[in-house]
């Protein structure tokens, strides 16, 4: 069980806004565009999710591809969505930096990136040493870095200190759907943060997304849990509601947990218990 005071810690105050790269976002759900059946399904899921920011990967163009084959960005209007290119597939800082420069060129100079430097294929766990190294260089080069990392509060703080725009700790390994494995760490990260904290990876279903938001995170990035759901479009809608209700609950401030009951009906005027 999570201690009550941790849940209460930042429930007071006005509605906080989510501002990334000088743009205010109404939706706190960021959608990954991998693993969908086709571009049409991707588009429908995006619409159902209400997301305003989406991630993409950058890869070699298929030389055999028919000219008429649509590019993802022909299908999904970059004027409508903020495109957040990732560095997925990079296992060292050097490759990740190269990927960021390439994505900036693909997106006509946009320097917003999602940095992820992974450790190994099996766990896809972040390599924090290489992540930090890349983050420092990219921030100096003027990139707006949203960084995928472990749920280590000290590493999260260090990534903030080197200039990352947003820190994105994992809830559980990418694509695992395990939900938040270490709430205390996420709470610590949120408590110490001065930049938006967006949980990235590990969400399995709607309640996981709600819990992330109830803990005071600024947003959540979801891909597999939607794209690989039985009905991705319905799951996109569920995630939209889950993120909104979780955030509302956080803002409202939950009740403290008590060991014993507390009657909801008044004891005054109770005709059954005169004493």
């Amino acid at each position, binding site marked *: 069980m999570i201690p009550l005071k941790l849940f209460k810690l930042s429930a007071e105050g006005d509605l906080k806004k989510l501002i990334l790269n000088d743009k205010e976002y109404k939706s706190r759900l960021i959608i*990954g565009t*991998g693993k969908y059946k086709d571009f049409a399904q991707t588009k429908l899921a995006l619409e159902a999710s209400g997301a305003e920011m989406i991630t993409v990967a*950058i890869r070699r*163009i298929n030389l055999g591809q028919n000219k008429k084959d649509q590019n*993802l960005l022909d299908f999904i209007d*970059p004027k409508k969505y903020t495109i957040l290119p990732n560095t997925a597939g990079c296992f060292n800082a050097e490759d990740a930096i190269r990927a960021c420069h390439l*994505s900036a*060129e693909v997106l006509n100079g946009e320097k917003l990136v999602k940095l992820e430097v992974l450790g190994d294929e099996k766990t896809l766990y972040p390599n924090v040493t290489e992540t930090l190294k890349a983050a420092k260089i990219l921030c100096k080069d003027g990139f707006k870095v949203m960084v995928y990392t472990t749920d280590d509060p000290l590493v999260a703080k260090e990534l903030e200190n080197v200039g990352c725009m947003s820190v994105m700790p994992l809830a559980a390994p990418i694509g695992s759907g395990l939900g938040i494995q270490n709430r205390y760490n996420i709470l610590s990260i949120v408590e110490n943060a001065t930049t938006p904290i967006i949980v990235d990876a590990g969400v399995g279903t709607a309640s996981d997304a709600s819990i992330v938001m109830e803990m005071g995170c600024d947003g959540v990035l979801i*891909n597999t849990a939607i794209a690989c759901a039985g009905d991705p479009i319905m799951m996109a809608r569920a995630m939209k509601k889950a993120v909104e209700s979780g955030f509302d609950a956080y803002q409202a401030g939950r009740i403290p947990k008590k060991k014993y009951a507390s009657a909801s009906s008044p004891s005054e005027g109770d005709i059954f218990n005169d004493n």
Partner: protein
Amino acid sequence: MVRYNSFMRISINKELISLPDNITVSKMLEKLEIEKKFIAVEINLNIIPKSDYDSHIVRENDSVEIIQAVGGG
């Protein structure tokens, strides 16, 4: 002097491709039927800005990468 019927071999996305000698990046993309928007062209690990596509010449043995955005998380 313009040389006709002369071809060079370059590596594009790790595939060996024959293209007319010393063509521009723009001409190369045209030959490959690749639209110029939302791509990046990297030659020998240097990114060629879109503004240089008409002037930058692709040379024999160049290693070219042509990159686009795809679905990803």
